[in-house]
């Protein structure tokens, strides 16, 4: 519509990685006027915030990215190809790109994600689709998107995405922390009458837990590079064994968390493939896709 050109649109992108990360961009005639980022600890807070923003501006488009295991890429759009790979064709949603390759995700995951939030979501992307939109070099390349809790790998052979892998990091640790907190809460509620007596002990316990958490987080941040390396090794093995015999010529790490630059040396030494790091803003990339789609 002609009038829409002159109307300010609001694009919100968000995803959960350790906490809720959100980016708001105001766009007029496909040009970004202003933008700002926010982070939320609680789901209720981000829900309240986005609802308010939608109420303020009717032309608001909310976008997010699917960070689940049951998604991937296929170098074809045909049903036959999916059946060959033993993928449950009836329970996935397929997005065919240029009749050449396709992204897929579990219908269950998509509907679960859409029902999870109390506000309407307008665009939902596969994490591999976002990587594909960022991929400038496409000949025998491996793209590794690194988040705090997730690693997504997309492998290209002859300009076409052929291989995808998704890894959830720190899954166990998160549950452990949650369990500790729950137990801690229960103890406090059960022994509510003895709180005054045991207050010093409890505070000491909390300090201990905090120290343990810090130690764990330190090891995790140092571990992420090792995680990338190990996962890359496995993925490359899988790629050469099951997908292509063409050598991967370059690994491009799309970094969203600020990983140590030494990882490139580490990978080059271990796998002997040239590696480079590109700093990206995943929220901006998601919004860019939405802005182009509207």
């Amino acid at each position: 519509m002609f009038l829409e050109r002159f109307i300010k649109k609001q694009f919100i992108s968000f995803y959960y990685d350790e906490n809720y990360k959100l980016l708001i961009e105001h766009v007029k005639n496909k040009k970004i006027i202003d933008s700002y980022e926010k982070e939320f600890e609680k789901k209720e807070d981000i829900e309240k915030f986005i609802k308010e923003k939608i109420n303020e501006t009717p032309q608001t488009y909310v976008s997010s990215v699917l960070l689940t295991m049951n998604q991937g890429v296929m170098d074809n759009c045909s049903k036959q190809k999916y059946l060959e790979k033993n993928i449950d064709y009836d329970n996935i949603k397929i997005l065919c790109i240029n009749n050449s390759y396709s992204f897929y995700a579990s219908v269950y995951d998509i509907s679960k994600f859409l029902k999870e939030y109390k506000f309407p979501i307008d665009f939902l992307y596969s994490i591999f689709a976002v990587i594909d939109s960022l991929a400038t070099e496409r000949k025998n390349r491996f793209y590794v998107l690194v988040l705090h809790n997730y690693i997504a790998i997309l492998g290209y052979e002859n300009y076409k995405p052929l291989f995808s892998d998704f890894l959830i990091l720190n899954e166990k640790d998160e549950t452990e922390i949650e369990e500790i907190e729950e137990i801690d809460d229960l103890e406090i509620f059960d022994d509510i009458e003895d709180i005054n007596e045991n207050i010093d002990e409890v505070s000491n316990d909390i300090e201990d837990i905090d120290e343990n958490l810090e130690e764990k987080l330190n090891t995790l941040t140092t571990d992420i590079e090792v995680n990338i390396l190990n996962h890359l090794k496995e993925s490359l093995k899988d790629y050469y064994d099951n997908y292509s015999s063409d050598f991967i010529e370059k690994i491009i790490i799309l970094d969203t968390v600020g990983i140590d630059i030494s990882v490139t040396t580490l990978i080059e030494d271990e796998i002997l493939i040239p590696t480079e790091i590109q700093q990206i803003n995943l929220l901006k990339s998601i919004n860019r896709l939405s802005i182009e789609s509207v």
Partner: protein
Amino acid sequence: MKAYSFIKPKKKPIFKEDTKLWLIFITFSLILYIFFALFLALKAYFFKQDSQKLLKEIEKLKKQTTELTLQKEFIYTQKAIYEDIMIKNALVKQQIKNLLDLIPDPITLEKFYIDNDKLIIYGITPTKDIYNLLMLPPLESIFEKTTTYFYKLPNGWYKFKSENYIKSEDENQTK
């Protein structure tokens, strides 16, 4: 641009609900304003036409008034003439009556001519004396100059012509 999203966005309203209400209100007001302006323009147009018609009517009525004034003046003139004539006629009538009262029984009147300042009487009298005694004195008392001509008839009576002037002929001539 490739469509990368698994879902499509719903159509977004351009304006908020309250903005929509405002826009509807403003549009409605504008429409009303335009209609009112058109109504006024039409009204002005018809008023102008009416005023032109009325001006023409006024011109026509003015002409008619002038004509009527002229007619009225003419009628007044006519009336004045009529009244004048009526008065004169009444006077003449009275004069004739007076004249006829003047005529004594022995004298027979044949005809008479009355003008503004003269009276000419034709008649028959048995004798000149009867005329001079009975007829002449009242005539002389009314008119300034009286001249009588007698013509003897075969039976011995006299036919006479009496010319009577309120002012003498000489005076009339000099005037």
